[in-house]
């Protein structure tokens, strides 16, 4: 059975480009990847790029300017399936850790002073689903090679990719690690999507949340727990927000309203 190779585009916005690099880092499978798909546009990988109709667009990075916003809308308009790759595209990334606090302009001024920005109009960093509809999210900072390749293989075969929706704790128990949070230490595992194989807790380090928030997290309970364990509430909030982006910012609004120190 043969299928027509899907037309694919890979794009990057505000971020470290680490997710695109991770695609190129799939060295053993790269020939297969370029063979099974027709890569129409991938600026980091090749110079001969064509912008047109796409079956699948992979988009990395958050949206931080009006110019990017326009470009993203254009990609969406010509793609059948749009996939957010990496924490910045999925939730906004570390650059969105303080999103919505009303102090973005103040911070912008602190960094850029009165410099006139002419290339584009800068905005507070947003995840791409704040602008366009996203069909599939591949989280990670950076993404995991095998999660990415599994998803691509499924798409090429005409199937819907499956990515773990449950938290890191599940994979962490599969690895038979003792629970860090149970021991009274900070760990972002219960709030964070699995898929990383619980690398950090397996090495005895707490989960920092780089896979981004799960769809079903109880941040209020974890926050309360850490406060009871004697952690400084402000420190806890910083840790929770590091990779949580816009999504976590929305969830912690209530906690912050009640006053972190309360």
């Amino acid at each position: 059975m043969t299928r027509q190779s899907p037309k694919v585009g890979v794009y990057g916005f505000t971020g470290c480009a680490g997710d695109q690099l991770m695609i190129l880092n799939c060295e053993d499978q790269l020939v297969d990847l370029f063979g099974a798909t027709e890569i129409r546009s991938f600026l980091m990988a090749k110079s001969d790029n064509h912008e047109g109709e796409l079956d699948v667009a992979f988009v990395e990075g958050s949206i931080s300017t009006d110019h990017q916003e326009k470009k993203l809308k254009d990609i969406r308009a010509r793609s059948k399936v749009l996939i957010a790759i990496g924490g910045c595209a999925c939730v906004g990334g570390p650059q969105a850790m303080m999103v919505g606090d009303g102090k973005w302009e103040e911070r912008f001024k602190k960094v850029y002073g009165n410099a006139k920005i002419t290339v584009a109009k800068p905005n507070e960093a947003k995840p791409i689903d704040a602008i366009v509809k996203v069909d599939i999210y591949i989280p990670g900072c950076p993404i995991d090679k095998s999660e990415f390749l599994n998803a691509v293989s499924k798409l090429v075969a005409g199937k819907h990719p499956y990515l773990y929706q449950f938290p890191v704790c599940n994979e962490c128990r599969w690895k038979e690690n003792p629970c860090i949070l149970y021991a009274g230490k900070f760990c972002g595992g219960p709030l964070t999507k699995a898929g990383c194989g619980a690398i950090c807790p397996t090495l005895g380090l707490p989960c920092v949340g780089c896979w981004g928030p799960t769809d079903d997290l109880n941040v209020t309970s974890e926050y309360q727990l850490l406060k009871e364990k004697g952690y400084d509430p402000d420190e806890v909030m910083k840790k929770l927000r590091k990779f949580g982006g816009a999504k976590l910012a929305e969830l912690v609004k209530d906690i912050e309203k009640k006053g972190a120190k309360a």
Partner: protein
Amino acid sequence: MMILKMKKEDLSTFLDAVKEWGELWGPTKKDGKVSFSKVDSLSQMDLKATRTIIPPKKFLYPPRFTMFDFDENGYVERTGDVPKRILFGIHPCDIHGVVIMDKLFLETYNDPYYRERREKTLLLGHSCIPDEKCMCIATDTDFIAEGFDLFFTDLKMSYLVWVGSTKGHDLIRMKPELFSRALDKSDILNYTAYRKWKNTQYKTMVDFTGMPDIFELGYSSQVWDKLGDKCLSCGQCSMVCPTCNCYNVVDDVELGSIEGTRDRFWDSCMFREYSLVAGGHNFREKRADRLRLWYTHKLQAYIGEFGKPACVGCGRCVATCPVDINVVTVADALKEQEVGK
């Protein structure tokens, strides 16, 4: 069932001898991790370790494994690559857990993957000393009469060895000179004394009698909402529970082909995705509903169907849940109508 006697110092020789049958696995402790690991000899095991983080279900039903390979012509089962294993040092609660798994995976529905692993795994139980989290006395799982191949009760100077199966007897016959059938009055007295002493060692006092009624009465209790507010939905309770058996199934395909594998991995009803169905409807959207399902299943529904709880009192949920939701606190909360701190 036959009971034999063996000198304590002969255990090492016996385990060295039975390795001929298959890989030897036992409880080990390394960097705070207590788990069943592959070992060369008794000296590498820690028989004092009370509970492993993950129960022995991992051998019969691994956290994630491939069931079969498929292509456009059909599928080929991945059988035959499971090694023969001898698990030494399994405690009564965990053997009770396996007995429950056997009911679920081998009786009404025969699961070929479970069956293959079960048949290739010998369970050599060992008596234990309860710690502050053990509550097998409340679930009537502190002693075991079935499900094992051999069971070793440590009576200080000697072992009393229960022979639970013909496979277990085959192991005995590999070193028959180490075992004696000559049991005397002192063995009976020592064993009775051991049982009495074990009964006095429990520190977690919990009463599960009447649980089905209490669950029925408390079905709409606000206690569930309070527990739901605390629950992190991390699913750890399911992973560490010897009787949690739910799984998800997923296909992986090779890049550029339709050949692939079908995998199975441990799932939990504590996850939102578990009760999500096509069209986006979720039967248990609320965390409180998911918690109630989990505990109702363990302490009410299972009793109704099998006459005993699906809790074996191992204390793993007590030793794992970061927000202190476990069979003890939930049973207490329902009875007292108040969630403890």
